[in-house]
């Protein structure tokens, strides 16, 4: 009987029920997708922040005052691959080696590096693509990266100083080169010739040698613990520090695999990153909270508006002899159904919304968390039931005759 009454209530008030279900669905959708967003925002934005370039710099360990001014020591090319074997290897998004040399006859700086290099990482099926194009996205080449052994890239400032253009010839290390493009980076490469690393190593006789490596890694924002001096930590603290993806611990791990190296965080990048993540995360949390509250209130006002009319029906039921329990049961069942249907549609809708937000802004969908499904359903049922409870209680308290007469 209960079910029959509820069923007929749905059939006879399609519109009112539809309005309530839509309100619950939209409220749930928005709440759930914004929660998805706030849970995923830090990981999404920290990827975006890598556009500011590398956050770790690896250099040879210097010894003695003479080495401060003129570079004599080098790192080894063969160690580069090991960067992808450290504990936090999956957080290494890219690295670029640099070799700095001076062309002996002209005194121009010649830099060797990788622009877009595909390397095979042991134990990984997919090749790892890295180089300046990945780590330093602000590099601009007019023309193209050298494709053969007699092509060279020319920095913007040097090109205007030497009055050399794309396609012109130039002599370096006693060999003839063609300028394949003009590079502009806003830093020292602008005033240099740039060659593929391996080409320069051969030319300059510095086989297998590199001057420094820039590494771009996804890191855990620095907290108070992270700022402690690792050398003064207890073994347990050290282990915790080592196994957390702080920029310092990743640097430490890189230092361990690259012989004779010193790896240091690039502090302006590393610190700003943490700050931006914290601020932006907080902003999104707060906005989500505002939206979730507003969705809940919005759904409640709709429910109350819809159910004010219900007082009349409650009175009628009382008049035909339904006891309190029965009356309440009928309306609660109804609210449960509204909440369930609304919650379900809302959750499905939120999958679309969070995908839209993710793809539109970050190019990849937001991560879906399974926990949101029961959470959405539970919350929408709860709101529906609460929204129903108020008018029912009000109706039950009033003598039926008064309401039936049209008050």
């Amino acid at each position, binding site marked *: 009987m209960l079910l029959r009454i509820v069923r007929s209530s749905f059939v006879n008030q399609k519109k009112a029920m539809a309005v309530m279900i839509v309100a619950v669905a939209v409220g749930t*959708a928005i709440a759930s997708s914004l929660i998805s967003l706030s849970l995923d925002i830090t990981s999404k934005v920290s990827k*975006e922040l890598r*556009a500011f370039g590398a956050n770790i710099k690896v250099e040879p360990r210097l010894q003695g005052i003479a080495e401060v001014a003129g570079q004599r020591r080098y790192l080894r090319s063969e160690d580069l691959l090991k960067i992808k074997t450290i504990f936090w290897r999956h957080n290494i998004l890219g690295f670029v080696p640099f070799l700095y040399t001076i062309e002996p006859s002209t005194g121009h700086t010649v830099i060797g590096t990788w622009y877009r290099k595909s390397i095979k990482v042991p134990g990984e099926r997919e090749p790892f693509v890295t180089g300046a194009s990945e780590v330093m996205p602000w590099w601009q080449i007019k023309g193209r990266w050298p494709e053969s052994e007699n092509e060279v890239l020319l920095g913007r400032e040097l090109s205007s100083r030497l009055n050399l253009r794309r396609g012109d010839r130039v002599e370096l290390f006693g060999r003839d080169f063609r300028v394949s493009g003009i590079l502009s980076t806003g830093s020292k490469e602008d005033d240099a010739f740039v060659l593929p690393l391996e080409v320069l190593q051969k030319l300059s006789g510095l086989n297998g040698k590199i001057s420094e490596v820039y590494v771009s890694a996804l890191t855990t924002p620095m907290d108070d613990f992270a700022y402690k001096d690792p050398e003064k930590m207890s073994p347990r603290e050290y282990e915790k520090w080592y196994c957390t993806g702080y920029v310092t611990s990743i640097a430490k791990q890189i230092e361990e695999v690259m012989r004779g190296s010193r790896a240091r965080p690039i502090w*302006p990048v590393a610190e*700003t990153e943490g700050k931006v993540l914290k*601020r932006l995360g907080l902003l999104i949390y707060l*906005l989500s909270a505002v939206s979730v509250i507003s*969705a809940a209130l919005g759904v409640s*006002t*709709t429910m109350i508006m819809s159910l004010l009319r219900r007082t009349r029906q409650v009175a009628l039921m009382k008049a035909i002899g339904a006891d309190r329990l029965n009356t309440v049961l009928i309306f609660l069942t109804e609210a449960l159904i509204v909440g369930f249907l609304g919650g379900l549609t809302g959750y499905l809708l939120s999958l679309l919304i969070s995908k839209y937000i993710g793809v539109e802004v970050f190019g990849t969908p937001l991560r879906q968390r399974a926990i949101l499904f029961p959470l959405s359903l539970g919350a929408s049922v709860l709101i529906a039931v609460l929204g129903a409870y108020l008018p029912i209680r009000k109706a039950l308290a009033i003598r039926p005759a008064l309401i039936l007469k049209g008050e």
Partner: protein
Amino acid sequence: MRMKKGSWLNYFVFKNIKLRKGRFFIAISAVMLTVAVLTAFVVLSTGIREKMSRELQSYGANMIVTTLTGLPLKEDVTKRIVSNPLVRGFKAHIYGTLTIRGQELEVIGVRKKDFKGVRLEGSFPEGGNQVIVGVKLAEALGIKKGQSLKEEKRGVTFRVSGIFERGSKADTAIVMDLATAREFFGIKGFSALLLNVDTRYISRFTSELKRDFPSLKITTVKQVALAEEKLLKKIELLMVVVSLVVVFSAAITMGSTVGANIIERMEEIGLMKALGARASEVGRFFLYEAMLSGIIGSLLGTLAGVAIAEAVSRTAFNSFVGVEIFWLPLLICLGVVIAVAATLLPVRRATSMRPSSILRGEG
């Protein structure tokens, strides 16, 4: 006394509002809620660039200004540059060299408050004869905090008050307080100006600067400028997309609240039609009420929205966010429009139905 037709409309509508305060209140709340969320998102979306770009300044300057001649920048030139509204922040540097252990070492003079994005063990140099040393230099020379350094050319001794690490070229340099450096090297003005310029107008700013001061050397730090603009655009886009989604849904819930009210009053609409009211005359009744709740709700909503935005901004950025006033009337209008649309849509449907079916209760 005879009243005009319009006054009677007033009379009937206010009578309704008076006797159904609860419903009217809920309608207003629904409008207020939507407009508040809308306002909060608009205010934050328009203010986010300013807030975030301030955070991003710690990545470093996006423009470096020096002179083509290598001479220091004059103080009045500096003042004119940094007073440009496109300049969001600036640092001044003084460069020089110290001769230590027979080696010329670079020195940077900087203000304490501008020395950011750095890990410092020890304290920033205060007063004369104190310096801090870059970690690379310190490691190479075996310099420790508290040690003394003897400048050989001028015969001055400096005390090392700290070792700093920045992860850049500065790690092989020595840093002094700006005033000390100025005095020590006898420089008037500054060696370089490090600016944070609004990234949207960076090329305009550069050409203006070149026009006004042809002797300046202006370098855009592409790494910072491009990445900054890209990130800011992305954050703005994020705000816009989220705002759209949230506002759209808030408008729907508000519409459904107002719509639920109309559904409840279907019988009234049927009766009015039976009494001979045209669709437009019925519409006028509800329109009037919707306008009232729309205007009151929107006014309260914009106020609440600004309050929410400020609260969020205080919490997330430790500062208030500027409100662009011209948005407010726009938001109020939008609130009224949504309220009216949400009312008139179901009313129009009802007035186009046959009165007999409404009165029978099929609505």
